[in-house]
């Protein structure tokens, strides 16, 4: 796999990840993730360092399987959570994408800058979460699956709800 091929493969998956969240295509979104997918949004230790060890430090979100992501999707779909009904409208922007092939033909490590624009329809307010995203993609059959998505959220003085669909 050439770097260009890795970049193209990563862009396809990462842009779909964003698109499916914005269009609320939850099942297609979940299908992008590996069974053992990690979804991680660290907290911050201090001004300069995000937390780095999920076994000894707090994360904003740490999920370690697609099943746990599915729980959050079910909560959003269920309509019984005041926080997510009505759902905010979102636009997930992804830029500065780089990708590196790894482990033969089976893995890609990718990085991007993310900016998620959130419109709270209830209060007619706009919010923005931004940060750096790191992805690890693995090949499963003919597809690339997200094995790990880590979002280092820069503006962690949180003025609205942080969940899988707002970062």
């Amino acid at each position, binding site marked *: 796999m050439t770097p260009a091929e890795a970049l193209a493969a990563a862009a396809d998956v990462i842009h779909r990840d964003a698109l499916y969240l914005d269009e609320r295509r939850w099942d297609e979104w979940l299908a992008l993730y590996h069974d053992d997918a990690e979804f991680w*949004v*660290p*907290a*911050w*230790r*201090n*001004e300069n360092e995000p*937390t780095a060890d*999920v*076994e*000894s*430090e*707090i*994360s*904003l*979100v*740490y999920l370690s399987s697609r099943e746990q992501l599915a*729980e*959050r999707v*079910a*909560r959003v779909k*269920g309509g*019984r*959570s*005041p*926080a*997510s009904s009505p759902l905010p409208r979102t636009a997930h922007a992804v830029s500065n994408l780089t990708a590196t092939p790894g482990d033969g033909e089976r893995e890609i490590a990718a990085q991007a800058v993310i900016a998620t624009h959130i419109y709270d329809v*209830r*209060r007619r307010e706009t919010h923005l979460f931004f940060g750096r995203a790191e992805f690890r993609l693995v090949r499963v059959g003919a597809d690339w699956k997200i094995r790990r998505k880590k979002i280092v959220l820069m503006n*962690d*003085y*949180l*003025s609205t*709800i*942080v*969940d899988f669909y707002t970062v």
Partner: protein
Amino acid sequence: MQPADIDALIDDRPQDGAFRVHADVFRRQDIFELEMKHIFEGGWVFVGFEFQIPNPHDFLTTRIGRQPVIVSRDANGQIHGLINSCRHRGAVVCEAISGNRKTHVCPYHAWAYDSAGRNITVPNEGEAAYTAEFARHDHGLRRVGRIESYRGFIFASLNPNVVPLAEHLGDTRVFFDLAVDQSPDGLELVPGTVTYTFDGNWKMQIENSADAYHFVPTHVSYLQILGRRKPSKPDDTRVSFRRTYLERDLERGSFTFPYGHNALWGANENPELRAIYVDRDKVEARVGAERFKWMLYTRNLLVFPNFQLLETSGLQVRINRPLAPNKTEITTYCVAPKGESKIARVRRLRQYEEFYNPSGLATPDDMAIFDACQTGQSSEWVDWHQGYLRGIGQMTRGANAAAKKLGVETETSVATTAAMGDETIFHSQYRAWRAMLKSALGASGNRPQLAGRAAE
């Protein structure tokens, strides 16, 4: 405003079984200003943990109400509460969240202060052509009125005329002990402090944590998730829901204390899933069966006005700071017994994040509700709330059997069920609130009178 204007906001008639709170306490700007000046800046508030600043010259910065402060340990180990504002022109002297500094140097004109807050340098003082007038003034950082600790929890008051911390805390100290004594070495702070805001009045958060009635309807989607999980294996870190929250045979109750504090508590539906259960033999052997039982219980303690020590899913310290009548900042700390096993710590972290975090499965729903409450009572057409009466027919003055067994003196006690959702727990908070504001309004001059004095 007169003291009678404060009385008019709380319809408190115990002889008639009446207790109502007026919506104005959540929305009026003049009430908010009074609360900031006389409650948050006029009485005891939590400012930090001793274990955040263990060494000489360690410091942390925080705010008391609107005022930035430095909590600093000096060369001799004594803790000082210093107003974080240079005596020269008022700039914040220390912008760091925490650290270790022998001197704090103002970035503006480089006036410098030692870790006890004393001024050690006025640059080029000899060339300043000051007269004797300058030397007549203390150039050290201003100090908070009082700063004291209980078992590593540091509280401070800008106003020096407050009762000693031990009296202020009273028997809520037993609830601190139930947290600290989970390890022979006490507590430590887990890295990763989370701060968020919600669009509602500060009292909504402290009331919500003492409100058992909201738990099922507000958090039904969280409970559904727990219910769908397969029964946990012994090494699972997440909670599943084997027994239902509404089970009636579980012991539950609420206590209120002088100065506005309260505790909501209850037997845990899934004690075997708690982090401290992993190391239960060691802990129980050290503290005894009765104390260990209480350590496994769910316990939400409020020390009025800004401090909550919660143990529902791990131990959380939750600090509120009002920003406006309709906006509140919450800072959350995960504290944990020092030296607990790794499996216990991981279990604690995952349960904590899932339940408490503003990015978890429960707190976001509370935040949405606070916003809904604030918006719903935007106008004068909303007046008296009816949400302060459940449980009143079962309220005991003073300690009930559970309180006596635990060894705490209370103002009131209620033995509850989950379905009852006692609301008399809020009464002491409002009586302290009323007493502090009335006392301030009745005082001559601008200084608040003795802050924190409860009404009865």
